[in-house]
């Protein structure tokens, strides 16, 4: 087994999908000879040809809309949006068409497409290159939104997304692209899409996060362990649909929950999880549900980026707060 980073794992999964299924087609800006600005598609045009790995004109709306049409007519398009800050122009096609085609036609036409986009902050990128607006997409009925957190999960979840019969937005935590590696077997085995994953078991407090913020969350959990607090860490993984049972069960055990995400607070996806607990786990909760998020502001330019991002310390403090609550 080869040691792969997340970006390697994504590339490997894309290659596997192209190899296994002639209907898989990749398109996006600069994904061909350039291999994508993060190299997610590096070498694929050489292996599979320019007809299956296509550079599009600079047009996000038509990237999404073309994926809808191609998916409905028998291809399995895996399209890339270069950065999440440029995904807004695709929302019309995602919400009004991709997510509806099956329902609108009562199953006659379907939309097995994947829209990939790197998201999140932490690499000191220019404006619009660091957004985390996943909550907007998770609000769209009929869509799936998936976020991997490790090379293994990136590989397995991307294969699952491509094979899924419905549209999936696959958001890649770009801060993690090259920050970790692990052995990943290119065995073509997909992971289940709709499952949250317990990354660390613990009985005192449940920490829920996804994507890159799991680094801070896990670091906070380790630090808390040093203070005798045993945190459970859950990787939400599927942002839509949400695996509510796993979270409820965990909070049922711990009675405490802190949710961590980069996106702004108000109407962020953390709200959905906290709301779910307020409805379904109220009697288990022994402390307020805390959300540690990017501040409720516009994502700042790089110089203030670190201030915006939830730090290990902010997560740790929130966990301590809920532990001390009485």
């Amino acid at each position, binding site marked *: 087994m080869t040691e792969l980073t997340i970006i390697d794992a994504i590339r490997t999964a894309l290659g596997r999908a192209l190899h296994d299924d002639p209907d898989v087609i990749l398109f996006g800006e600069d994904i061909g000879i350039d291999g994508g600005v993060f190299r997610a598609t590096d070498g694929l045009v050489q292996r599979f040809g320019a007809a299956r790995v296509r550079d599009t004109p600079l047009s996000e709306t038509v990237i999404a809309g073309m994926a809808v049409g191609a998916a409905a007519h028998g291809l399995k398009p895996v399209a890339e949006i270069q950065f999440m800050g440029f995904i807004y122009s695709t929302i019309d096609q995602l919400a009004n068409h991709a997510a509806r085609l099956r329902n609108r036609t009562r199953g006659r036409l379907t939309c097995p497409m994947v829209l990939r986009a790197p998201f999140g902050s932490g690499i000191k990128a220019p404006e619009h290159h660091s957004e985390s607006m996943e909550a907007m997409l998770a609000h769209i009925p*009929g869509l799936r939104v998936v976020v991997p957190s490790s090379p293994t999960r990136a590989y397995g979840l991307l294969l699952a997304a491509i094979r899924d019969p419905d549209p999936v937005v696959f958001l890649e935590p770009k801060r993690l692209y090259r920050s970790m590696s692990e052995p990943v077997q290119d065995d073509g085995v997909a992971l289940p899409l709709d499952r949250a994953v317990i990354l660390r078991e613990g009985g005192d407090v449940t920490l829920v996060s996804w994507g890159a913020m799991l680094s801070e969350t896990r670091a906070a959990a380790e630090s808390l362990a040093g203070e005798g607090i045993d945190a459970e860490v859950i990787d939400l993984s599927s942002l839509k649909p949400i695996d509510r049972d796993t979270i409820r069960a965990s909070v049922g055990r711990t009675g405490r929950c802190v949710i961590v995400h980069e996106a702004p607070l108000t109407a962020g996806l953390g709200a959905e999880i906290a709301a779910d607990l307020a409805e379904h786990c109220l009697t288990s909760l022994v402390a307020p549900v805390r959300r540690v998020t990017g501040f409720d502001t516009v994502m700042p330019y790089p110089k203030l980026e670190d201030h915006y991002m939830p730090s290990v310390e902010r997560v740790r403090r929130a966990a301590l707060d809920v532990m001390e609550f009485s």
Partner: protein
Amino acid sequence: MSEPLRFLDAEGGCARELPDFARDRETLVALYAAMVRTRSFDAKAIALQRTGRLGTYASSLGQEAISVGVASAMQDRDVFLPSFREHGGQLWRGVSMEELFLYWGGDERGNDFAGPTQDFPVCIPVASQFPHAAGVALAMQQKGENAGAVAIGGDGATSKGDFYEALNVVGAWGLPAVFVISNNAWAISVPRSEQTHAKTLADKAIAAGLPGEQVDGNDVIAVREATGRALERCRAGDGGTLIECLSYRLGDHTTADDASRYRDETEVSPHWQEEPLIRLRNHLVAAHDWGKADEEGLLRSSGEAVEAAAENYLATEPDPARAMFDHLYAAIPEDLAALAEEAGDD
């Protein structure tokens, strides 16, 4: 700027030599019948809406030649991507009147037509069907299907970015797509002249390096001929085409609209002289022995078909509430199952 392609003038006289298909009585009668049927369907739909038995409806009165002409040039394996005013084309392709009534009555099952199963349903967000057509054409190109994707949109649709982006990728990738603009001179209350300063809408093709052509959209022969040629280019691997069909919206925008607020009857009435049925009927009478009995028979059978379809539609049991959930995903996710139960007994 050349004149729009036209074979039959407003009176049904031949403006130029007819293409082969248009010398065949059977073909012409089929085209005429399809337009008459469409007009009957329109009239019934409006009547149903006025009596509270159908939702908001967009009539195609006066524009029947466009979608009928377009659809009649297509083969089964081509894919049709209509906007919301192409009932005639949908019917020609094999969608049933009952299905169309269901759709306009507010029932998703109307889009689950038994008919051309690869065709797209009505598309409401203006111009958003053009990117789909590019995608369908991409799939056709990729799979070597030797077919074309044919999308129709209005004059207003040509102002939208998605129309343009789709046109551009069709040009850049040589995709087998035909974009038809049904220029009925109005986008709700906005006249064509205020929609864009472009000389013609066909000219917009230049921005994508595609051939663009203007056609008399009230001449079903011209529409069919232009679409047929464009589809031949698709099949020959020569890429896409933009066709602007010139017509006029004789009715309100939809049943929710009152066109008298923004346009004078004096503007509308001359266009009644130009509408597509008269000229083809005149031509049939003059050149193909179309008689009073033929006409009456056609009107009767169209009327009967529409009435029967309407009856079936009105007798259709509503979908159960939980249908909302059943088609959202291939399999219902766990977190929705509970809600679906709740809906079930609501």
